[in-house]
């Protein structure tokens, strides 16, 4: 099945083969970006941002512009008249004639799915509340694949708020399809991965899961360390926060026990969970990860549009 004309609402919308097709093209785009500079000429990406997210919007716009396409859209429904009292269905039916592919970010969960039911063009979910943010998941997967050469047989640790962090939920669920995945979950007891997610991982995929409160205990066994922020208000009480807050901050000192080729990843923006003294370490790839986000979006847009990606190479 071709990706042309499809929607991306949830990372599970695509098979592993389809994901590979995206990653393979993204790899080619990294290697010779200029060869793809015109492939979307004459195409328009609509950016429907019902809540502001400058970083995500710019990464999509950059991706389209780098392929010679054009962009139009709005970045905050509050200041545009497009959404005032109008149903999403009506808005989408009209706007899908203005562009060739669209990305939608919306504060309400399920809004992009709803849009996809009425759209005549591919809809990409650019984040819907606390639900999904599939292009972040694709970015994370491409990053691991590029640096490790494969998505199989990796020991991947997630550190921080594993209860509410949607990037973590999506990535774990996507990686659990790959053989030999081992997950190490590092969090305070009250911010552990939700039980229903854990049991579905164990039932469906027979993956191995190890839970701990201590990053130091496991850091020497990890291939990929995915850091996330813990917000203070997520803790049940001040005493726990004071006791645990430093255990979830990665610094040079903790890093020295880790494998030479471990990857430190982070969806950005970071606050203080990775100290600045880690940035120069070769294991720190979170800025590279953000850069790869552009390439994965380029590949995704090109394949959903069905443009000729072989013309120039």
């Amino acid at each position, binding site marked *: 099945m071709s990706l042309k004309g499809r929607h991306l609402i949830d990372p599970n919308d695509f098979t592993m083969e389809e994901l590979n097709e995206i990653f393979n093209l993204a790899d080619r785009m990294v290697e010779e970006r200029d060869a793809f500079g015109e492939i979307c000429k004459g195409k328009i990406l609509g950016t429907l941002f019902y809540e502001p997210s400058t970083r995500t919007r710019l990464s999509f716009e950059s991706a389209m512009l780098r392929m010679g396409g054009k962009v139009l859209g709005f970045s905050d429904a509050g200041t545009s008249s497009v959404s005032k009292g109008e*149903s*999403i269905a009506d808005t989408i039916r009209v706007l899908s004639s203005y562009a060739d592919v669209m990305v939608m970010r919306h504060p*309400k*969960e*399920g809004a992009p799915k*709803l849009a996809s039911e009425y759209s005549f063009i591919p809809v990409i979910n650019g984040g*819907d509340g606390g639900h999904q943010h599939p292009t972040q998941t694709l970015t994370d997967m491409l990053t691991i694949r590029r640096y490790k050469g494969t998505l199989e047989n990796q020991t991947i640790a997630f550190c921080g708020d594993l209860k509410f962090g949607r990037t973590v939920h999506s990535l774990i669920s996507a990686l659990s399809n790959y053989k030999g995945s081992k997950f190490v979950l590092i969090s305070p007891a009250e911010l552990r991965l939700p039980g*229903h997610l854990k049991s579905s991982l164990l039932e469906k995929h027979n993956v191995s899961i190890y839970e701990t409160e201590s990053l130091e205990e496991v850091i020497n066994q990890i291939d990929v360390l995915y850091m996330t922020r813990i917000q203070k208000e997520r803790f049940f009480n001040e005493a726990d926060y004071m006791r645990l807050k430093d255990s979830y901050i990665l610094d040079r000192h903790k890093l020295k026990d880790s494998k030479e080729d471990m990857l430190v990843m982070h969806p950005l923006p970071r606050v203080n969970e990775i100290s600045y003294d880690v940035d120069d370490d070769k294991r720190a790839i979170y800025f590279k990860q953000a850069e790869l986000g552009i390439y994965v979006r380029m590949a995704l847009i090109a394949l959903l549009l069905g443009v000729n990606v072989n013309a120039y190479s």
Partner: protein
Amino acid sequence: MLTVNSINCGIVIDHITAGNGIKIFEKLKLDEVNFPVVLLINVPSSKLGKKDIIKIENKIDVDITMLGLIDPEITVNIIENDKIVKKMNTVIPKEVQGLFKCKNPRCVSNFDEYVTPKFRLVKANGKIHYRCNYCEELTSYSI
């Protein structure tokens, strides 16, 4: 033993789990109608021990999907000229549209008037839940 005349033409909702009769009575707004309706509660039943029955002397449209959602034990008999002309068993619906709302307060289906909430049946730990087509959260239905 209390006896109630059988109906001539209409609907009998039978095998209602005792206690659910009054809820279904209210859900179908049978207190507002102008034709004869009987609600029997705690009727001895070989299958259920005790059951409730609703007899409606009129052929109204009863939503079988909704009854199955409330109580999958229910049977519905259509009566014409004192005879049962059709017997229907309810089932737990695999898909439900618009009969209840998604419990996730952040779900788009609770904000956009155009959207009909849609759900798919999910069984987890022996319990029945419905997964929202939009936000994927689970909602369990109870009347």
